[in-house]
């Protein structure tokens, strides 16, 4: 479904992604882990099109998307959530999701009808809010929601674009244990419905969700394997878990 081949990206003299290759199979949750500065966010930004790689290719559904525009990627079924909450704070939760629905409901050269009374948009938007458990908060301004709810709203907006592949950039960052496990439950329900590339710092989250894990160190793929294998891999322990333990 997603094939990343010999990807290279450097900032100034700093090599952020160093000849990275890996594949994501359809229908699974594929985790990407790695210590800080391993290039996780740089990777997701290239997949979603925010930045362009120096060399290498990205194939999505056999289409070369390496240099494709951000909005076209969305059109062919790629969606992402952001690490820093990136929603429209002065709109309600319902409006936020309706906007995302609208982006994939034909063109928006509609100048007359009130979009907030557009049932097609509103009903669908509510469905997605339900999927992330926010239906009771639909009419609150996004700015009034809690941090955890912001992240849930992000997921709802991404889902509303009806993606085949969902890129999640640390969906549990900055969350307490309770919010974090709620997010894990939401993501578990999505399993099997679409493919998810999950970039995550929290090991418990990754190991409880992912079917396969790629370990990123210094912009390189040091191993891609099943979670059990990753857990027992010596190289990973030294390069990543070891460091994590020292940090903790």
């Amino acid at each position, binding site marked *: 479904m997603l094939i990343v081949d010999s990807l290279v990206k450097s900032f100034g003299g700093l090599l952020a992604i160093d000849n990275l290759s890996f594949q994501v199979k359809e229908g699974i949750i594929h985790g990407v882990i790695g210590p800080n500065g391993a290039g996780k966010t740089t990777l997701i930004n290239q997949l979603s099109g925010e930045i362009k790689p120096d060399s290498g290719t990205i194939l999505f559904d056999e289409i070369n998307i390496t240099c494709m525009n951000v*909005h076209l990627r969305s059109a062919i079924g790629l969606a992402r959530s952001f690490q820093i909450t*990136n929603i429209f704070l002065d709109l309600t939760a319902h409006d936020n999701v309706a906007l995302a629905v*609208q982006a994939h409901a034909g063109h*928006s050269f*509609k100048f*007359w*009808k009130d*979009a*907030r009374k557009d049932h097609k948009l509103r009903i669908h938007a509510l469905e997605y809010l339900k999927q992330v458990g926010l239906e009771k908060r639909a009419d609150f301004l996004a700015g009034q929601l809690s941090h955890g709810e912001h992240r849930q709203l992000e997921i709802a907006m991404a889902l*509303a674009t009806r993606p085949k592949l969902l890129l999640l950039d640390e969906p549990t960052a900055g969350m307490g244990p309770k919010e974090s496990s709620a997010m894990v439950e939401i993501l578990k329900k999505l399993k099997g419905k679409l493919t998810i590339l999950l970039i995550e710092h929290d090991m418990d989250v990754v190991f409880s969700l992912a079917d396969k894990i790629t370990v990123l160190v210094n912009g390189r793929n040091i191993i891609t394997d099943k979670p059990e294998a990753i857990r027992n891999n010596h190289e990973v322990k030294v390069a990543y878990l070891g460091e994590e333990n020292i940090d903790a």
Partner: protein
Amino acid sequence: MLGLAAVPLIADVIDEPFYTVMFSRMLILSIGAISLNLILGFGGMVSFGHAVYMGIGSYVVGIGTFHAIEDGISWMGNGLIHLTIAVVFSALTALFIGSISLRTRGVYFIMITLAFAQMFYFIAVGNDNYGGDDGLSLYTRSKFYNILDLSNDNSLYYLNFTLLIVFLYFSHRLINSRFGILIRGAKSNEKRMENIGFPVYRYRLVAFVIAGVICGIAGVLSANQTDFVSPAVMHWTRSGDLIIMVVLGGMGTLFGPVIGAVAFLFLEEFLSGITEFWQIIFGPMLVLIAIFGNGGIDGILVRLDKWWQIKK
């Protein structure tokens, strides 16, 4: 609004036709400000060349009536033709300016729209056949068959008034439509809009063209109002005036531009009554508005209202 509808009647009663002309000018500038507010207030596009479309509309009338009188080509004096041509030319010009300048952001966008406006200004200055720098006097106004006689200031006033209402209602619909929601979303977070799949550029371009067209129509009215067109109509300071009106009234609000245009003309009238050098007061006022003002007059009213409610 209802008060505005009665202006010509009152002016006739107290025998001060000057008020009809002055308020007529307010209505026309309001339409211009409404059009700028669509892209500036709701879309976040700081266009510093909006007076160009005012100029295009004006010159269509000026050149049309010129040929109608000089060469006796009567269809060139037809108001409907003036409006049609003004709409087409404004749209094409906005398409040209917008397609290049919308590729840029922030301060580049401001400067480029300004520079393009200056380019059109020079075209008008260099156009010696139609008066060049000195401009062109209109010896007749746009003709609307026998239905509407614009040579009567009151008829012109009510045409302006009707169009103002039409465009107010249009912008009310527009900003709440799918298109409007999109444009407003792109103002607050363009990247996110791209990310959920909106091709933002083309929608912004269409908004830019719509705003240009409405302002072009205001230009048609303006030429009929002043009976005179000159390059000064599209001088960059006129674009600045439009920005001032939008900011003064309150950006991104429906009635803000109307309030702003009215306030602007009243201020001009009032300050120039105090001193001949009125801009020496008006200039620093703008600086203070930029430093302390937030939300323009509309915002001040809202804050006053809040303060009042807390006090109660």
